[in-house]
C-alpha cells in the first residue's frame, strides 16, 4: 500500500487546519453558506436530510486494517455505529455534526486518510477494480498510476472549480471490473507488442440524467504521458464545458456537442503544447510509487487437499466458494468478497463498526493487513491462503458477511436513497430489502446465475441503475414514490445502458415485477444462458408483454 511521507503528511495537516478555520468562519458568519458550500463539498461534507454526511476517500478502494479500525472508531464515536460503502469505493457516514468534522479529519489524517475531493466539481476519487494487483487475469497493476493520478489531481489549482464533478477510473484486466466506460475519463492499461505499457483513453462516459458510455479518444498512449494527457482533457473541459445548466455540465455533453473527433483533436492540440513537460511521469517516480505496491511475502503453497472435502461436506461453504472466492495470481491463495448484502438485516453497502473491526482483524490474520472496497459496495480480502478459506468463512458467516450472493440478484448496488439523501426522489433501501426478501432462496439465486440489479433513488444514478441487468430508478410523481425499470444494462468491456421497459411502479409492486422478469428469463433460457444472453437473444418485447398485459396497455 502507498504510505505517506513527510510531504503527504504536511499537506494533509495543512488541509485540515485550513478546513478547521473555514468551519470556524462559517459558524461565526464570516463565510456565507453559499461561500462555504463548495469548500465543505471539497472536503467531503454534504448536507443531507437529517444531518451532514461525510464521505471519506478510499483511494482506488484500498485500505489497511489500521485504517479500517479508524473508520470503525469514527462510526462509533461520531456517528451511529455504521458506515455506508459507495460505488466510488469510498465510505459515507450519515450522522455527522459540522462542529466535529475537523476533529474527524484530524483522526483520519493520523491514519493517512482524508475526505478531500470526495465531492464537489473537482476530480473525484480515482477508482480501479477491487482485485488490482492480485487478479488472476490482470495484465498490469493499475495502482501505481492510480496513486500518481491521485497526487496530481489533489488540490490541482487549475481544476478546482470545474463545470461539474469529474470521475476517473483505470483498469488493466481481461475483464473490466471498474466500470471504466461510465467515467468522465476511463483508462485501460495494457501491453503493446514490445511489452511497453500503454493506455487507451476514453472520454465522456457517465450516468446521471444523460447516460452515455465513453468514447475512445486516444489509443496507445505511453504511460509516461498519462498526467499531461489528462491535463489536456481537463483544460479543454474547463474552458469549453457548459456552466449555464448543471444537468448539461458534465464532459460527456461537451464531447457530444463537439463530436468525438473534434473533441479529441482539441485535446491533442492542447496536449502537444504540454507533452514532455515537467509533469511527464518519470521512471524514477513510477518505480518509487510502484515499490509501495510490490507483492507481499507470499508463501509457496499448493491448493490444499482438504478444500474439496470441506466443500463436499458443507454445501453452504461450497456455494460461498463458488460466488465469493476469486482466483488469485499466486498459487494457493484466493481473494474473498465479504458480502455487505445480507438481505433484510442491513441495507446494501452498510457495515457496522463491529463488522469493520472484525474485517480488520481477518485481514491481518488471513492476509497482509489489506482490505479492498468494490464498486459493488462489498469488502474484499485480497490475499487469503486457500487453506484458511474454511475458518474465514465460519467467522464471516457468524458476522453476517458471508452471504454467498456475489454477482447474483440480491447483490444489489443501491444508493442511500430518500432515507438519507436530500437529492433523492424516492427511497432505495426498503425497495432493495423487499427484493432481497422475495429472493431469499439461495439455491434459486444460484440457479439464476449472474444477474445484476442496481437501484438509484434519483436520476443522479449513484446506484448505477443504468448499468444493472435490471435497473431501478426512483422517480417522483406528484409527491409519490414510483420506480421505473430498465433492462439490458451491463458493466464491463461489453458495457451497455439499460432500456426503460414501460410505465413506473409503486414500491410494493416492484418485487412482483422482478419476479415476472425472472419468470420470462427462465421460460426462455436455453441451457446455461445468462440473463443477459437470453435478453440479447429474445429482446425486450417478451418481458414487456408479460409485465404489461396487452389489454392493460
Amino acid at each position, binding site marked *: 500500500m502507498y504510505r505517506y*511521507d513527510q*510531504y503527504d503528511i*504536511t*499537506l494533509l495537516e*495543512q488541509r485540515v*487546519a*485550513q478546513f478547521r*478555520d*473555514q468551519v470556524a468562519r462559517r459558524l461565526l458568519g*464570516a*463565510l456565507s453558506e453559499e*461561500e462555504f458550500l*463548495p*469548500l465543505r463539498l471539497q472536503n467531503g461534507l454534504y448536507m443531507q436530510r437529517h444531518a451532514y454526511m461525510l464521505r471519506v476517500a478510499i483511494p482506488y478502494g484500498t485500505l489497511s486494517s489500521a485504517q479500517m479500525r479508524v473508520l470503525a472508531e469514527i462510526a462509533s464515536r461520531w456517528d451511529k455505529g455504521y458506515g455506508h460503502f459507495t460505488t466510488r469505493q469510498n465510505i459515507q457516514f450519515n450522522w455527522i455534526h459540522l462542529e466535529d468534522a475537523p476533529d474527524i479529519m484530524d483522526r483520519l489524517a493520523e491514519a493517512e486518510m482524508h475526505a478531500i475531493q470526495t465531492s464537489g*466539481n473537482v476530480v473525484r476519487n480515482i477508482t480501479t477494480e477491487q482485485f488490482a494487483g492480485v487478479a488472476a487475469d490482470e495484465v*498490469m497493476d493499475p495502482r*501505481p498510476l492510480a496513486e*500518481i493520478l491521485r*497526487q*496530481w489531481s*489533489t*488540490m*490541482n*489549482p*487549475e*481544476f*478546482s*472549480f*470545474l*463545470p461539474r464533478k469529474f470521475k476517473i477510473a483505470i483498469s488493466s484486466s481481461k475483464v473490466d471490473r471498474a466500470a471504466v466506460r461510465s467515467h468522465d475519463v476511463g483508462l485501460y492499461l495494457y501491453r503493446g507488442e514490445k*511489452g*511497453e*505499457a500503454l493506455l487507451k483513453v476514453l472520454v465522456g462516459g457517465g450516468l446521471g440524467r444523460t447516460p452515455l458510455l465513453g468514447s475512445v479518444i486516444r489509443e496507445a498512449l505511453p*504511460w509516461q504521458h498519462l*498526467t499531461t494527457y489528462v491535463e489536456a482533457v481537463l*483544460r479543454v473541459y*474547463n*474552458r469549453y464545458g457548459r*456552466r449555464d445548466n448543471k444537468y448539461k455540465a458534465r464532459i460527456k455533453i461537451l464531447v457530444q456537442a463537439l463530436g468525438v473527433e473534434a473533441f479529441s483533436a482539441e485535446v491533442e492540440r492542447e496536449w502537444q*503544447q504540454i507533452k514532455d*513537460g*515537467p*509533469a511527464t*511521469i*518519470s*521512471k*524514477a*517516480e*513510477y*518505480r*518509487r510509487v*510502484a515499490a509501495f505496491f510490490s507483492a507481499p511475502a507470499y508463501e509457496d503453497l499448493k491448493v490444499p487437499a482438504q478444500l474439496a472435502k470441506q466443500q463436499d461436506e458443507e454445501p453452504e461453504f461450497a456455494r460461498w466458494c463458488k460466488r465469493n472466492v476469486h482466483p488469485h495470481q499466486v498459487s494457493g491463495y484466493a481473494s474473498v468478497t465479504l458480502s455487505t448484502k445480507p438481505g433484510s438485516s442491513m441495507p446494501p453497502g452498510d457495515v457496522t463498526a463491529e463488522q469493520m473491526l472484525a474485517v480488520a482483524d481477518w485481514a491481518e490474520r488471513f492476509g497482509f493487513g489489506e482490505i479492498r472496497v468494490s464498486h459493488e459496495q462489498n469488502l474484499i480480502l485480497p490475499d487469503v491462503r486457500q487453506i484458511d478459506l474454511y475458518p474465514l468463512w465460519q467467522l464471516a458467516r457468524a458476522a453476517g458477511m458471508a452471504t454467498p450472493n456475489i454477482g447474483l440478484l440480491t447483490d444489489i448496488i443501491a444508493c442511500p436513497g430518500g432515507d438519507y439523501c436530500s437529492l433523492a426522489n424516492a427511497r432505495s433501501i426498503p425497495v432493495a430489502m423487499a427484493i432481497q426478501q422475495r429472493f431469499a432462496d439461495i439455491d434459486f439465486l444460484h440457479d439464476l446465475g449472474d444477474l445484476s440489479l442496481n437501484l438509484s433513488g434519483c436520476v443522479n444514478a449513484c446506484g448505477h441503475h443504468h448499468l444493472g441487468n435490471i435497473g431501478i430508478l426512483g422517480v417522483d410523481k406528484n409527491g409519490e414514490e414510483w420506480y421505473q425499470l430498465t433492462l439490458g444494462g451491463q458493466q464491463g468491456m461489453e458495457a451497455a445502458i439499460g432500456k426503460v421497459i414501460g410505465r413506473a411502479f409503486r414500491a410494493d409492486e416492484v418485487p412482483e415485477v422482478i419476479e415476472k422478469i425472472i419468470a420470462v428469463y427462465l421460460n426462455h433460457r436455453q441451457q446455461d444462458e445468462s440473463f443477459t444472453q437470453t435478453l440479447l437473444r429474445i429482446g425486450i418485447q417478451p418481458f414487456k408483454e408479460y409485465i404489461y398485459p396487452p389489454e392493460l396497455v
Partner: protein
Amino acid sequence: MPLIIRANTPVPQVEDDHWQLIKHDTETMQDDAAWRILPLAIWQAQRAEGVLHANSHTGVWIGASDEYEEIIDDLLALPLIAIDFPSFRDGRGYTVAFLLRTRYGYQGELRAIGDVLRDQLFYMHRCGFDTFAVREDKDIHDALKGLTEYTIRYQGAVDDPVPLFRKRAMEMADFNDEHWEP
C-alpha cells in the same frame, strides 16, 4: 483608495491600488491621467479609433467567456491584465491565467477581479495571478491568510512548474535505464 493584495513580493501584502477598474462601458471615466483597466471590447474599440493614449497606464480585463487569443500579441504588451471571476465557482479564469503565463509568456501584472475570495487565492496564485482585488464586502487583511496556508503542492503550476515528485527524486538515487518499462 481601494486596496489590493499583491503576492509578487517576498511576502504577500495589502497595498493601495492606483488602478481604476472600468467595469461597464456606460461608466463615466475619470480624468485621462488615471490608470484604467478597460473591458476588452472597449479597449479594442478605442484602439481601432486611435483614441487610446498613455498605453503604459492602460490595462484590460478579460471576461470568462471573452475571446482573447486572436489579439494575444497586443495584450502581451500591456502592463496589467485582469481576469474576471463572475462567480468564485466559475473556474475558467484559472485556465485563462495559466495560458497567459505559460503559453503566451505574459510578464506583466495579472490580477484577479470579481468574486475573489480568501479561500481561492492560493489556487489563483498558483495559476499565475499576482494581484487580487478581493470582493469589497470582505476583510482584505483576513483574505491575505489565504496565500500562506500551504507549503506543499503535489503538482507543478505557474508559481512552481516542478511537481513534487521531481523534488522527491532529488532525495533518491538516479534511475536512468532507458530500456526500463513498468
